[in-house]
């Protein structure tokens, strides 16, 4: 017994009750339960009748064989137009072995074999072992039957709504002139705007798809190239649809945190950053990082390359509670400072929590005390690593000093006093920065003088060498002269 499924999203009256006379050996009248009617059911008086089954066939009806509605033309009695069109080699009497009789024999045996066990999929190799015919003919017929859902068709397999399925459910109504794809039966047509599913290989299209408006088909790039589309379509009917990855998702908080962590660890190695974030390409990471609210500040203070590292260090140290809004708030008082130093300082102060600063201060107090003009070289070598700590220590020192002074005055911190404290801290931070720059300048000057000295030395060396060269030449010439004289002398004498 075969039954049809109604195409989804189609009004019931249009689906006619189709009688597929299937003189199969086992005829079982369908139980009443199976006839959840969308269309009027047919009586079971005639030996081969059809009924419209429920979208989800009950497992008790093991004898029911389902074929899709667009294959309703099929009949085991004869050969229909569709078959002649799709498999012309059997009907054009070009080859003696391919004739309608052979085709019918192959087709019927394949179908019978499948129907003996309709729940399991039958493979081509099983079929060809049992048929006395050449394997290519068998394969063609098998592919044809498979494509039209006459074999290996089980509704349970089609639970995913494919994009082109919904479109086809409307077109499959009309005669099977243009072969359509399988229509979804049970699930309502859900339009997924973000995902494209290929109609033939049923995989998610990621890079680019090819959509055909002529036949409402969507194919992934691979199927398109392979030519896996139906008869009647050509490659020109397809247009390319690009899918960009950015459209898919936005950056979540977690991903942003991962990105910042990664940047802090790997700095400029965007490959590793992309790896760390997971799921984002390098370009995505870079663009998103730039777009982050503090990105501009960081881009502005480019000379403080190390500053970025320490900045991120602090960011990392802070819990994720420090949301971007908090950062913005703290930035506002000095955000429009023309001096980039001030802006950076303001930023640092906003981020450095007192606890962090105190911990860093313990380690860095000694280093700070060592800072002096005499120790400039040693200091600057470890500048990059320590700078962050120093800043933190300075601020912490500043804040500690302030705190102690506050405590001396009064035990309670009120809001305006805190503001004053913050400003004091900012001033000290700025002073420290300026000191750093001064020291740097001094350091560079020293290097400069060293280079000058070496340059002078090199020049002296050059001069010496030149003198040596001259001497050698002179010597050579004089020897030659004496040699010639001696030679002349011997010749004469």
């Amino acid at each position, binding site marked *: 017994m075969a039954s049809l499924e109604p195409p989804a999203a189609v009004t019931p009256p249009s689906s006619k009750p189709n009688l597929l006379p299937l003189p199969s050996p086992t005829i079982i009248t369908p139980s009443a339960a199976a006839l959840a009617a969308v269309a009027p059911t047919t009586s079971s008086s005639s030996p081969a009748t059809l009924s419209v089954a429920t979208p989800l066939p009950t497992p008790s009806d093991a004898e029911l064989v389902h074929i899709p509605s667009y294959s309703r033309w099929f009949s085991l009695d004869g050969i229909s137009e569709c078959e002649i069109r799709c498999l012309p080699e059997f009907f054009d009497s070009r080859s003696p072995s391919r004739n309608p009789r052979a085709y019918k024999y192959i087709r019927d045996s394949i179908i019978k074999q499948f129907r003996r066990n309709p729940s399991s999929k039958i*493979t081509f190799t099983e079929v060809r072992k049992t*048929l006395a015919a050449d394997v290519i003919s068998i394969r063609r017929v098998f592919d044809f039957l498979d494509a039209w859902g006459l074999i290996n068709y089980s509704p349970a397999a089609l639970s995913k709504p494919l994009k082109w399925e919904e479109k086809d459910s409307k077109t499959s109504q009309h005669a099977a002139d243009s072969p359509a794809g399988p229509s979804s039966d049970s699930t309502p047509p859900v339009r997924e705007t973000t995902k494209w599913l290929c109609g033939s290989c049923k995989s998610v299209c990621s890079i680019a798809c090819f959509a055909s408006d002529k036949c409402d088909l969507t194919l992934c790039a691979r199927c398109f190239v392979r030519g896996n589309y139906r008869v009647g379509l050509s490659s020109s009917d397809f247009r390319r649809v690009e899918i960009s990855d950015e459209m898919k998702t936005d950056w979540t908080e977690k991903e942003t945190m991962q990105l910042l962590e990664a940047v802090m660890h790997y700095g400029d190695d965007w490959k590793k950053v992309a790896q760390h974030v997971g799921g984002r390409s390098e370009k995505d990471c870079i663009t998103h990082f730039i777009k982050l609210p503090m990105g501009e500040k960081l881009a502005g203070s480019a000379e403080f390359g190390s500053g970025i590292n320490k900045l991120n260090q602090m960011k990392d140290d802070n819990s994720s509670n420090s949301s971007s809004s908090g950062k913005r708030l703290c930035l506002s008082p000095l955000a429009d400072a023309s001096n980039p130093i001030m802006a950076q300082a303001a930023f640092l102060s906003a981020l450095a929590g007192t606890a962090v600063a105190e911990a860093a201060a313990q380690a860095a107090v000694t280093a700070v005390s060592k800072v002096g003009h005499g120790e400039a070289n040693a200091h600057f070598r470890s500048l990059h690593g320590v700078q962050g700590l120093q800043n933190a220590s300075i601020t912490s020192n500043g804040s500690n000093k302030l705190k102690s002074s506050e405590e001396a005055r009064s035990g309670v911190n009120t809001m305006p006093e805190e503001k004053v404290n913050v400003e004091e801290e900012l001033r000290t931070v700025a002073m420290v920065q300026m000191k750093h720059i001064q020291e740097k300048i001094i350091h560079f000057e020293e290097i400069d003088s060293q280079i000058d000295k070496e340059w002078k030395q090199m020049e002296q060396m050059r001069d010496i060498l030149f003198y040596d060269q001259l001497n050698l030449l002179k010597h050579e010439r004089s020897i030659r002269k004496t040699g010639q004289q001696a030679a002349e002398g011997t010749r004469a004498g």
Partner: protein
Amino acid sequence: MKPLPSTSSKTPVKFRMPTSENLVPIRLDIEVDGQRFKDAFTWNLSDPDSEISVFAKRTQKDLKLPLAFATQIAQSIQTQLTEFRSYQGQEMLTGEKIVPIKLDLRVNHTLIKDQFLWDFNNFDSDPEEFAKTFCNDLGIEDPEVGPAVAFAIREQLYEIAIQSVATARESRNAKKGRRGEYSSISSRSTGAALDLMKLFSNRYSVVRKRKEWDVYEPMVDILSNEEVNALESMEERKPR
């Protein structure tokens, strides 16, 4: 269709399978990494070669064989097809050629032994039809037997065709030397029936002698599992 040559059967004919369909028997016996794959089927020569790789891939996927099989299968098919094609341009001698075909094969649990005569000259013959009728008449249930029988017939016809090509070549060379007389093909004057008689040393009637009945009777045996296993192990030992 080709008319049956009756008297002027000495004229050589282009090589082809002496059946209504020019199908080539292909036998596969591939071993990869200890896995052995044996198969036999018929291939239509007029199909493009692109089908070979498709078929090989399909078979490999359906049977869940490792990937190396696909290329091997395709290669094997290709070599056999080229071999067949190499014979195609040449001529073969046909004539009143009645050949004995012997069936001795085991398909799953069915063992078949049979012998019969086949008219090699009949280019309308159809081994597939024969196999179908054979299975129906003997009530063989295993659907794989039919194609196996057809394949066996085809294979033997193929070998005889190759032989006749060889003899044709010899005869051509020999013609340059002397007029050759070929034993089973020469006598034309008396007609087919008498040829048969001559062939089978029965001069008095066309009916077969009783003692030969057994030979020409089909024998079908259904084996049990153990017998099948025993036979399989014997077969595997033989070629090694």
